[in-house]
């Protein structure tokens, strides 16, 4: 198992590791003692792997209720002198922004490292923001590893840098580090174990304005020191080629694309390169050395032209004449993740080297005409499918139209046909407050908010309190499947276990809902279609804010539990004589276990998990369980 490698004390051994796991290993080699996170693709496996060896490695690891909580826990641990880390996806940084920006003023004691996974394309996020802006905003160092080995190694540097500067340090990665497996040479596992001790100092830790005014100059001084340290960092590498007129700066992983392109073009000895890992603050002298030796500099960085803009102003400030090219100048595409192809193309253009492109475009076009889309969908038997069907039927029953505000989780797959069940999906927790907004703005149709269990605990509660306080006329449906499923099945407050595998109290959303002041709360199993439709219709018709908890364990978890108990699923089949080919089951539910063949619906008994929802939807009773 890959996680066993996390604690393997065999310095020098070569192992195959996923980038996220390599980061966890780096933290162990650095002596991390507290690690926290809220799951989010592409960052989840960092803490997801670390928690599996937490006890053995002597690290306290937790899945927190949200990123802000996770950050504050790691921050306090750092103030108590122990090395701590917090990991999240780029959107998680929006949540930690408040304490994170202040932590740069207080400074830290034990090294504090924030690992952030950006999603440039994006593959599984609602935006493609560039987290490096936050490092600039907070005035803290940001390191961006260029490969998997460095993803591990950079963690040790980050912890040391954090303690040298007394500042939090950010490590920024993208999916091509997070989810790339590569060869890693292990270093020694750290024996560092500090005793937590908090030395009170109100001038530092009580951030009232008068104290902050003293800390602001300190932060600026530390930030300047960080820039000095970046100049001598061993992580950066400048390779000046004598006589070269073209230079390239490759930031983090993008440096690999630059090397790939130069290799393909056979142009290594014609181009000077700077591999940049200290992406904030910049080593300006090092960059100037490159700028003053060439006529053209291409800057290859992921997402926004941040360094390009800085280098441009640096050039102007120093009166250098080098032409700066990159994403800002549209020489590299302004959007989407970089690839070796786009970097090769622009370098070929700059170097006036012909591209050996023998791709038969006509054939590719012909192939693409045949290839149809394959969008992801809810699993066979997913309770969310049943809940969405019931919400749509309930709105039909109430017969006044309806708007459904969605939230972040597996259940945003409800957007795809045939369900097409949600009208908005913005960010964690937005469903409830946006439903209130529609209602308060005067929308007369029923407004229904749909939110998952983990998202409800993460960000739904303040909005629900607001709904009660301000008399918003909304129905909130909490889809409780007991797990944070989308990001790879992390436990949460509804699951009953912690990240480290300890049993803990199960928090039921309905109890919190009542405490928030909601009087109309119902719990229902969405596999019971009729009851669910009735309960939701009743909630929609209720004159005050109402909540329905649709509770059924995530199908994947249910199947795992059944397998452990050696219980077999009982799939459903279609009685072909009875099936009238109306396709209602398919067109309303879109279960991946059913398919339309020769005018009838057929259920693949291998895929069917036996939830029985389609049997309840069939108007002629043609679907039955196999006994």
């Amino acid at each position, binding site marked *: 198992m890959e996680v066993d490698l996390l604690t393997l004390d065999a310095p020098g051994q070569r192992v195959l590791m996923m980038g996220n796991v390599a980061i966890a290993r780096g933290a162990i080699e650095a002596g991390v003692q507290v690690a926290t996170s809220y799951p989010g693709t592409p960052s989840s496996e960092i803490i997801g792997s670390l928690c599996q060896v937490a006890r053995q490695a002597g690290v306290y690891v937790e899945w927190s209720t949200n990123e802000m909580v996770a950050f504050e826990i790691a921050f306090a641990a750092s103030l108590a002198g122990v090395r701590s880390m917090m990991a999240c996806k780029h959107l998680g940084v929006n949540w930690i922004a408040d304490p994170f920006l202040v932590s740069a003023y207080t400074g830290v004691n034990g090294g504090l490292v924030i690992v952030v996974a950006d999603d440039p394309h994006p593959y599984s996020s609602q935006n493609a923001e560039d987290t490096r802006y936050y490092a600039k905003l907070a005035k803290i160092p940001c390191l961006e590893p260029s490969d998997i080995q460095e993803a591990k190694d950079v963690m040790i540097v980050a912890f040391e840098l954090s303690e040298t500067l007394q500042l939090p340090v950010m490590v920024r990665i993208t999916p091509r580090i997070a989810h790339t497996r590569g060869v890693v040479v292990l270093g020694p596992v750290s024996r560092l174990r500090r005793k937590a001790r908090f030395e009170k100092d109100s001038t530092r830790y009580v951030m009232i304005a008068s104290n902050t005014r003293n800390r602001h100059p300190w932060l600026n001084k530390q930030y300047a020191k960080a820039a000095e340290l970046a100049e001598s960092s061993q992580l950066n590498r400048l390779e000046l080629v004598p006589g070269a007129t073209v230079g390239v700066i490759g930031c983090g992983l993008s440096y*690999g694309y630059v090397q790939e392109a130069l290799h393909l073009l056979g142009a290594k000895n014609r181009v000077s390169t700077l591999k940049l890992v200290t992406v904030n603050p910049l080593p300006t002298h090092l960059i100037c050395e490159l700028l003053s030796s060439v006529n053209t500099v291409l800057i290859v960085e992921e997402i926004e032209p941040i360094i390009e803009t800085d280098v441009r102003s640096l050039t102007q400030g120093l009166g250098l004449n080098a032409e700066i090219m990159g994403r800002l100048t549209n020489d590299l595409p302004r959007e989407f993740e970089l690839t070796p192809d786009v970097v090769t193309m622009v370098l070929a253009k700059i170097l006036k080297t012909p591209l050996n*492109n023998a791709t038969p475009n006509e054939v590719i076009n012909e192939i693409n005409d045949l290839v149809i889309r394959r969008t992801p969908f809810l699993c066979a038997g997913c309770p969310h499918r049943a809940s969405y069907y019931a919400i749509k039927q309930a709105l039909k029953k109430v017969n006044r139209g309806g708007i459904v505000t969605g939230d972040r989780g597996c259940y945003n*797959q409800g957007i795809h046909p045939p369900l097409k069940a949600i009208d908005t999906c913005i960010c964690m927790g937005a469903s409830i407050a946006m439903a209130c907004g529609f209602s308060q703005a005067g929308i007369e149709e029923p407004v229904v908010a749909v939110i998952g269990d983990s998202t409800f605990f993460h960000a739904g509660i303040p909005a629900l309190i607001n709904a009660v306080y301000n008399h918003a006329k909304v129905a909130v449906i909490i889809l409780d499947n007991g797990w944070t499923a989308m990001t790879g099945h992390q436990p949460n407050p509804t699951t009953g276990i912690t990240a480290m595998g300890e049993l803990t109290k199960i928090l039921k959303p309905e109890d919190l809902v009542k405490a928030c002041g909601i009087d109309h709360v119902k719990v229902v199993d969405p596999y019971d279609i009729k009851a669910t439709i009735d309960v939701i219709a009743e909630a929609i018709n209720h004159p005050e804010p109402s909540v329905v908890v649709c509770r059924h364990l995530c199908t994947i978890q249910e199947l795992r539990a059944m397998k452990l108990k050696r219980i077999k699923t009982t799939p459903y089949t279609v009685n072909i004589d009875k099936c009238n080919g109306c396709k209602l089951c398919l067109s309303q539910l879109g279960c991946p276990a059913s398919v339309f063949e020769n005018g009838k619906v057929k259920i693949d008994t291998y895929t069917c998990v036996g939830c029985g929802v389609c049997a309840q939807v069939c108007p002629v009773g043609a679907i039955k369980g196999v006994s």
Partner: protein
Amino acid sequence: MDLIISGVGGQGVVLASTMIGRAAVDEGLNVKIAEMHGLAQRGGSVMSHVRIGRNLFSPLIPSGQAHAIISFEPLEAARYVSFIQPSSGIIIFNTKGILPMPARLGMESYPSVESLITILRKYSPRIYPIDADQIAIKAGNIHTSNIVMLGALTASIRLPFSIKSFRTAIMKDVPKGTEEVNMRAFNLGIEAAINLN
């Protein structure tokens, strides 16, 4: 050597890529595997870039550079075929199609395997359509179809590591007690590809 492994989320694309990677690392080779995780997995289109050997700079394979594509589903072979070398790249795929949701709903039509073969042949004639599901059933377990495909891979291209290391890496990752059926599947896969040579 550069390989593209593709398929549908849940088919085991990541696991198959890792098996290849481990075999290479065990022989001291350098490896980079770019995978897809997360939401993209749930029934969506999935692919990995597997790179073995020297001069591995980028985890992503440049277009038109891969030596082979191994796809666990016909449509997913066509989707990513432009990553392989035109005319000489090897195309191995499981002929058992999995209908995407729009096709299940009758909104789009799934191309026939014959039409896919005809058109892919124009890109590169070195095609290995493998009925991996049937072969896996013959081996004794339909779940071994990916191992059939890995067997077919070893017989259609000269991998940079020994079959012995490959077998060992595969055996390490299959569920306990299924070693024998998986080995049968692997060998039947080799046989199937040899028959197409």
